[in-house]
């Protein structure tokens, strides 16, 4: 394996990880774009998605269905479960506080996050839950780098979902209503847009993406845990900020970029610093890039409208 192959492999690792970050980051950025609120409970929605899907998958693991069908069924149960959860969170924790000072919904967001973690701990226990070996472990090679069928699938599915989302926001009636609400909720309401419905729909779509991301993460790493949403949520939030929070294209770009930076950082920081810094600086490296971007471009790579939000 020569230098180029190693580079290619790190790129593949980074893009797959990044596409998962991007899916989660979209949930943060959509809510922020419309409400100006950072939904810190979003990482926990990802975790619940993974847990619900795994519960279904484990129940069906003994059945004679082919592996991918079982995983798909798990996903099909997890998506509506998360949609319901996302709607519920908005209805219970954010809507009553819509006109409260901005700090209040931020605190309820953290509260919801803690509640969800503990509920998941009570239901599913404290141990790692392993993902049954249902998906084919086939390894393909591109040059000297290897890629699994699952990695290809994760990347393509994430890309397809993101393309669908862009279409939804740019080309449909609902998308127009969302963009109008984002620009000015009151004016949009006067023009006949049902603002509450639009906000609920935004949460529901974001949660569906979270469910998909949750299943991807647990299938990819082969495990799920009640605490898994915390770090993932934090990374995805950073990705959203990196790309420009509130900007859908920015979340995708930020996610992919953060994934690649992490992967390259872990792989190359040792050789680049002559062994002075090692791979335990992986996360430091990713956040260092984030800080640099924010110092020189405070609204993120693709963000423009952040400053005008009230």
């Amino acid at each position, binding site marked *: *394996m020569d230098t180029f192959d190693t580079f290619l492999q790190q790129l593949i690792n980074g893009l797959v990880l990044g596409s998962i970050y991007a899916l989660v980051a979209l949930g943060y950025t959509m809510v922020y774009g419309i409400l100006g609120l950072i939904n810190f409970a979003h990482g926990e929605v990802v975790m619940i998605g993974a847990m619900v899907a795994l519960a279904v998958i484990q129940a069906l693991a003994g059945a004679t269905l082919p592996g991918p069908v079982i995983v798909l069924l798990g996903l099909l149960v997890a998506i509506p479960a998360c949609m319901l959860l996302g709607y519920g969170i908005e209805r219970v924790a954010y809507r009553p506080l819509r006109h409260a000072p901005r700090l209040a919904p931020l605190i309820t967001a953290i509260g919801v996050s803690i509640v969800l973690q503990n509920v998941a701990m009570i239901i599913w226990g404290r*141990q*790692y839950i392993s993902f049954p070996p249902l998906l084919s472990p086939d390894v393909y090679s591109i040059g000297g780098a290897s890629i699994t069928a699952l990695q290809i699938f994760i990347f393509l599915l994430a890309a397809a979902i993101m393309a669908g989302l862009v279409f939804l926001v740019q080309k449909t009636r609902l998308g127009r209503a969302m963009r109008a609400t984002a620009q000015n909720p009151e004016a949009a309401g006067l023009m006949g847009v049902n603002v509450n419905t639009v906000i609920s729909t935004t949460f529901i779509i974001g949660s569906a993406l979270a469910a998909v991301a949750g299943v991807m993460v647990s299938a990819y790493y*082969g495990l799920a845990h009640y605490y898994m949403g915390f770090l993932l949520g934090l990374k995805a939030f950073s990705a959203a900020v990196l790309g420009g929070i509130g900007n859908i294209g920015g979340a995708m770009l930020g996610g992919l970029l953060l994934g690649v930076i992490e992967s390259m950082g872990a792989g190359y920081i040792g050789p680049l610093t002559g062994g002075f810094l090692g791979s335990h600086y992986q996360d430091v490296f990713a956040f260092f890039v984030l800080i640099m971007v924010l110092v020189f471009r405070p609204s993120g790579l693709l963000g423009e409208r952040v400053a005008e939000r009230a």
Partner: protein
Amino acid sequence: MKLSGQFISSLVVATMLVAGCSKESAPPPPKADTAKPAELVVKIGHASPLTGTQAHIGKDNENGTLLAIEEANAKGIVIGGQKIKFELLSEDDQADPKTGAIVAQKLVDAKIKGMIGHLNSGTTIPASRIYHDAGIPQISPSATNPRYTQQGFKTAFRTMANDEQQGKMLGEFATKQLAAKKIAIIDDRTAYGQGIADEFEKSVKANGGTVVAHEFTSDKSTDFLAILTAIKGKKPDVVFFGGMDPQGGPMTKQLKSLGIKAKFLGGDGVYTPEFIKLAGDAAEGAYGSLPGVPLEKMPGGIAFRDKYKARFNKEIQLYAPFCYDAVNVMIEAMKRADSVEPAKYLPELAKMNLNGVTSRILFDEKGDLKGGAITFYQVKNGKWEVMETLGGAPAEPAPAPPAAEPASKAESKDGDAMSAGYK
């Protein structure tokens, strides 16, 4: 299960009663020791992570300790003319050094007479000062970092070979038995993971091997692709991981998905059924080590495994036999000193020489196990199988070879899928 457990314990009580009666008749008793025996309650402390990512191993430690205490109570031990009832006080240290020190103080305040624990080196070392200052003997069943017994505390013991011993033999195993020239190391930056990885690295170098990479992760990570890719470029023959099973399992899986052909080797932290569950098919062929002699080869080893199964309806995870030995050694010292007072029985503990279920328990002047043996295991057909035992003086070997249990249907299916998967 519960029924049979009760049955066994009542049987034990019955035999003890018979034995007790015959003893009673022999010496003319100035004070009849069973007349109105005022039971003396002796509290034994225990701490391990009972929540969080290592909860499965922590609970296993608690079970091993509890089993030994229940057995001792069933025997009706008499020390200093008083019938003793041992009571287990178990605390959750969350594998966190700060919490470890807090629960240690709590146990000391509860007036425990002896301490079994903690599980992790990271919690055992800071807690050991608290037990030492209170003069309470502490036996850790599983803390393997050398520093634990190098602090000059007379109260600190362990029933498992330390990382100097284990890391050294792991290094010999990698370079000799596995004939590896190029070796990559990953550690999780905990007291245990870093300690064993460093000892392993020293030993590999001493045995003529080359360490081509030393990468790092944390005890909370799940993504190792980036560091494994960096390792792949160095073409190692063996990848060694210093850490526990929640990382080791997924790491093995990712190793295979990157098409790395190197053999996977870990210390005692990965020698668990959980590791195989998390790694899935990729676990096949992985190597792990555990200080001590395989249970099957020890007198009383198989009996212990059956008793554990009958009492808890679960298989042993990892360190339960070491906890069981730790309790028995402590109680034996109390019996020999004829006192439950720490200051009185501590010298007897230091002089201990007893056959446990894991090995012969004999402490050196620091409290480390003398001549601790290390056994190597490999995953075959979805199960850890004994390969060989290095070092140490094994106790009398059992006549019967280890009974190989038939692999279940699911496992053989996994085996097939795996041979189809890698080409």
